[in-house]
């Protein structure tokens, strides 16, 4: 018999029962909750007189709607305020562990889960949010669910699931200055936004094992942009070191037992994948998206692609539409594209290592007597959680950013999806470290280019895209 993939193992240990036709009840170990996709689920519980099955598995925080400026006066937008207050009331009513807006532990769900040790290797993790794939970086099975499923998991601790297929994406060693974000954008450029549909993707290869845990989170975060609900990376010593000592992590005897168990969370050498994609890491340059889908991406040294060279009619049409929306001419060198706004943040790139990487670029500018370009209207740095913010301030990163002309904000989703006041105006062009460049994502008519934190910081200083390796070499 062939060995098992990591996904097979995670699946097998969580199946409660299997129905005819292959549908299974899958047990859920951790449920993260935020204000946008939960109100209707709590309402559903109330209407049906149901109680949450295991409240100790639930962790909640508001992130999408919270302001990133001074919060002492609460939330100004009345509709957003009601949504956050609804979460406040729901967690109170059901007795759920909660990091409210003014708690230092508040932040983007996908940042705080790992930060608290609430995300552990071997777990099944769900959240009413597609970027739940982030948590797969710990060798966990983690994916986004809809609001009906949020209610289902609250009420039963289980999800009705069908097993996905196994895909492995192997990336060989990348060059200096190429980050986790560049790796995952290059992967999506290769497999396409629907390439992973129906699959759980395991990311492997030297490029992935060389990454820090935070880097692996960035990669898994964007598995969903490649169509895969779940992305994951095998457990190694880095994983275990990262988890150790965090507030929700196991202690004492439990810790030793857990570590023993976690060491087995890798794919067996003879495991069979339904699909394997191999990518030559040396070919990966720092990436910049040029269109309105994450697969529309090229290296910073390239030019905006020309739809004339595309033979597939549907694709060509999509490219033309994207160029028109983005206000770009085909064949323009990426480095000639000027930006109006820079956003460093989101669950993809708002952890301490991301901020450090951006700060290196900012510090270099300050040392050379330069600042954020006059042509850039706004450059925002939004930490992923209150604790990330605290850590960054202890390291003096906030001062570097401010000295270089960036704004230093309170934690939340912010301009990643612009549900709060942070948003692009029509036609504004943004270098963003978030994960989606869809039409209107960062504000109606706004134009998003996805990049790494260092590339975003470099674009802020130069006023247009540049190869960050030229600056920091």
């Amino acid at each position, binding site marked *: 018999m062939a060995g098992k993939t990591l996904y097979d193992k995670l699946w097998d240990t969580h199946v*409660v*029962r299997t129905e*005819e*036709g292959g549908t299974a*009840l899958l*047990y859920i*170990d951790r449920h993260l909750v935020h204000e*946008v*996709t939960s*109100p209707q689920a709590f*309402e559903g519980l109330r209407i*049906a007189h149901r109680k949450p099955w295991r409240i100790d598995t639930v962790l909640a925080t508001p992130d999408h*709607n919270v302001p990133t400026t001074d919060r002492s006066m609460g939330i100004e*937008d009345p*509709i957003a305020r*009601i*949504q956050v207050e*609804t979460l406040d009331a729901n967690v109170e009513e059901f007795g759920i562990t909660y990091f409210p807006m003014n708690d230092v532990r508040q932040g983007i769900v996908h940042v705080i889960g790992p930060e608290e040790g609430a995300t*552990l290797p071997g*777990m099944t993790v769900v959240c*009413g*949010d*597609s970027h739940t794939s982030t948590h797969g970086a710990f060798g966990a099975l983690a994916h*986004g669910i*809809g*609001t*009906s*499923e949020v209610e*289902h998991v609250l*009420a*039963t*601790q289980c999800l*009705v699931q*069908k097993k*996905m297929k196994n895909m492995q994406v192997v990336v060989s060693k990348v060059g200096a200055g190429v980050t986790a974000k560049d790796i995952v954008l290059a992967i999506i450029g290769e497999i396409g*936004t*629907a390439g992973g*549909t*129906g699959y759980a993707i395991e990311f492997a290869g030297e490029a992935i094992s060389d990454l820090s845990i935070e880097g692996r989170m960035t990669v898994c975060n964007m598995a969903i942009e490649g*169509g895969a*609900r779940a992305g994951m990376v095998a457990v190694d010593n880095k994983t275990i070191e990262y988890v150790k000592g965090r507030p929700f992590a*196991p202690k004492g005897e*439990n810790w030793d*037992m857990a570590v023993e*168990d976690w060491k087995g969370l890798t794919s067996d050498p003879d495991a069979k994948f339904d699909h394997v994609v191999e990518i030559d890491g040396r070919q990966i340059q720092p990436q910049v998206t040029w269109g309105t*889908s994450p697969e529309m991406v090229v290296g910073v040294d390239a030019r905006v692609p020309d739809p004339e060279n595309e033979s597939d009619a*549907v*694709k060509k*049409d*999509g490219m033309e*539409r994207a160029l028109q929306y983005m206000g770009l001419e085909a064949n323009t060198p990426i480095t000639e594209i000027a930006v109006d706004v820079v956003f460093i943040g989101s669950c993809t790139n708002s952890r301490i290592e991301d901020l450090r990487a951006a700060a290196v670029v900012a510090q270099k500018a300050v040392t050379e007597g330069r600042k954020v370009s006059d042509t850039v209207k706004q450059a925002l740095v939004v930490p992923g959680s209150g604790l990330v913010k605290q850590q960054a301030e202890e390291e003096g990163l906030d001062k570097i950013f401010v000295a270089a002309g960036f704004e230093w904000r309170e934690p939340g989703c912010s301009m990643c*999806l*612009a*549900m709060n006041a942070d948003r692009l105006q029509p036609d504004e062009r943004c270098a963003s470290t978030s994960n*989606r460049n*869809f*039409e*209107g*994502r960062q504000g*109606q008519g706004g134009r998003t280019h996805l990049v790494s934190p260092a590339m975003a910081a470099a674009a802020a200083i130069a006023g247009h895209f540049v190869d960050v390796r030229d600056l920091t070499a």
Partner: protein
Amino acid sequence: MEKFTVLNGLVAPMDRANVDTDAIIPKQFLKSIKRSGFGPNLFDEWRYLDHGEPGMDNTHRPLNPDFVLNQSRYQGASILLARKNFGCGSSREHAPWALEDYGFRVIIAPSFADIFFNNCFKNGILPIKLDEKIVDGLFQDNAASDGYQLKVDLESQTITTPNGTSIRFDVDEFRKDCLLNGLDDIGLTLKHVDDIKAYETKRKQQAPWLFA
């Protein structure tokens, strides 16, 4: 959940690939704490010429005459014909809520994003995957004839075109059963309370740290 058995419906085309859930229902409408009322804001940024915000009176907003759902021939459509990777992006269930509230009960496409596909079934919408060529043919036939209707029969898993051609489609047995009977998933799962408890007892032995 409303049952789904047979639908005779007018077909509206959405002729672009990778339609994402941000486009289906833009984020400003996600601030609602309700499950209903999203229909008037379905495809808001494409459908209206002004910028929509929650709480607006949508009946007085300027419509984009070029947007397909605003054309008079598609008024009252209940079947949406779409291109590949429909519903990609955010997991927001507000997307199927908006489609359903608008009046769509069936979506036909060559492929769907996984989370969206799942969410449809939970809201009485039947997403149907068909071969890309067949979908292409439906787009052409639909464009060629005003008032183009399809009959979708879930029980027999067939779509019947106006000229009587019958197209078979696949659907997961469990989901079919839930849709046909309008069954509540949670109620179904709670029939297996004993299994869930047995799993927990066993798992607690193997992995006590998950229950600490």
